[in-house]
């Protein structure tokens, strides 16, 4: 098999960016043998500069520097920002992996737009640009004859969008309910299993590295709302934006309500309800497939032919999310 060299640009070298690099180190040979492509990283961009090497960046060395917070010591480090790298380096695929800002969608939005306009495919884990501008981005991709793939934006490692595309082609999706945020699920699980307050459960989530220092984005349901907007557009052909989603978080759930639910053989979960374009805490029976514990995510799809399908797995984590990103990369190349 003739080997095709594919150039990648990574924008954002945090947990997910590093996860992609680690997985590529591990799976490079496998991808070469099975797909006939040699994935080379031409550029890695961080907030204040970039590493560029069009012959392929040494990932092992770069990862070591990044883990020790010494990325700037890299011999190819320069202060060129991501947007200029997109303009300067012609990659085959741009991986947009910067953090989500649901108010503006930036900086991911401008990175994705610029990449698509320059004829580069985009694979992203960044929810905000798609939750805010789904149709517009799809139009730009279409008019430039490139692909925009976003499996990793919803529920990390869980294959939902590609499951629909590759395995549920003839189905009409009638409803989607999901636990789409690991932090809130971890907190609700701790409250139910250990009878602790929300503050105590959140503190523990922060200590074990599941929750951010500011967990508002997760607890208030904003993160889940962004995912509901993406699923509504991509799986149910609704033309909606994040701002159309009605969101109620879990911040006002009391230990007494959790106990009351338990007494009646139920649990309280933060559910993204795509049909209703709604995020809210809901009561579900303890034996329901969506009753998953800890930081797990779960999505239940009801389709007209296949009926109910539930998938459960890791909704976060750099390595786990890389599974979805590589699925999209290989799909772009197929």
């Amino acid at each position, binding site marked *: 098999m003739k080997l095709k060299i594919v150039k990648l640009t990574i924008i954002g070298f945090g947990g997910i960016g590093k996860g992609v690099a680690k997985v590529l180190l591990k799976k490079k040979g496998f991808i070469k043998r099975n797909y006939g492509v040699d994935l080379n990283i031409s550029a890695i961009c961080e907030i204040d500069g970039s590493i560029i090497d069009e012959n392929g960046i040494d990932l092992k060395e770069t990862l070591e520097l990044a883990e020790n917070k010494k990325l700037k010591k890299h011999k190819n480090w320069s202060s060129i920002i991501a947007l200029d790298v997109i303009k300067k380096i012609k990659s085959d695929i741009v991986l947009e992996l910067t953090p989500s800002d649901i108010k503006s969608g930036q900086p991911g939005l401008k990175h994705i737009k610029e990449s698509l306009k320059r004829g580069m495919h985009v694979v992203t884990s960044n929810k905000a640009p798609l939750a805010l501008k789904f149709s517009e981005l799809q139009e730009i991709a279409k008019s430039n004859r490139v692909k925009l793939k976003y499996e990793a934006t919803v529920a990390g490692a869980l294959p939902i969008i590609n499951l629909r595309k590759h395995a549920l082609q003839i189905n009409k999706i009638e409803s989607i*309910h999901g636990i789409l945020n690991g932090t809130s699920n971890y907190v609700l699980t701790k409250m139910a299993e250990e009878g602790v307050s929300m503050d105590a459960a959140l503190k523990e989530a922060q200590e074990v590295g599941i929750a951010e220092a500011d967990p508002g984005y997760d607890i208030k349901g904003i993160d889940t709302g962004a995912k509901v907007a993406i699923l509504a557009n991509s799986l149910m052909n609704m033309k909606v934006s994040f701002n159309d989603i009605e969101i*109620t978080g879990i911040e*006002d*759930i*009391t230990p*007494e*309500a959790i*106990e*009351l*639910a338990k*007494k*009646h053989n*139920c649990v*309280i979960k933060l*559910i993204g309800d795509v049909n209703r374009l709604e995020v*809210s*805490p*809901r*009561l*579900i029976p303890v034996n*329901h497939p*969506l009753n998953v514990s800890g930081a797990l995510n779960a999505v239940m799809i009801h389709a007209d032919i296949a009926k109910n399908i539930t998938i459960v797995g890791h909704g976060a984590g750099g390595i786990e999310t890389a599974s979805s990103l590589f699925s999209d990369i290989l799909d772009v190349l197929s």
Partner: protein
Amino acid sequence: MKLSLKDVPGSLLRALEPVSIHGGNILSVLHSRGEKELVSVQISFKIKDQLALDLIKKDLKKQNIRVSEILLEGKRYYSKKTLSFILIGHVIDTDIRNTVDRINEIGLVSDIDVVMPSPEKKSSVMMNIDFDDKRIKKLNKIINEICKEKKFLLIRSLEG
């Protein structure tokens, strides 16, 4: 049971068959043939249980026979469903009687479980409501109105 039948030969017989197949004892059949394409038929019968009624309804549906109304022992029969939810807020202090009465205009509050940690803290109240399946929209509307007005956090069941 009131049915609407097509005015074609054999349609009455087809409508009566499911009743007798599932053990119904037919007491009377009122057949009012008018000018319209559909004929109104009222059948009175005795059955042993709810399951038999469900099976009769299912068979009639299969034959595209429309059941316009069912009266059970003189009262209007409907497909009963139960909705469960939890309210978090000052549910007792904001006149729980009023909350229940307003819900009872649409359905029937059949069970209430209250947890009140202390008078000044928010209480959590679980309610089960029996209602006619056809009135789900109205029921949700009144529950949402109450929650908005009395500042309750509503935790609906997945089906609700």
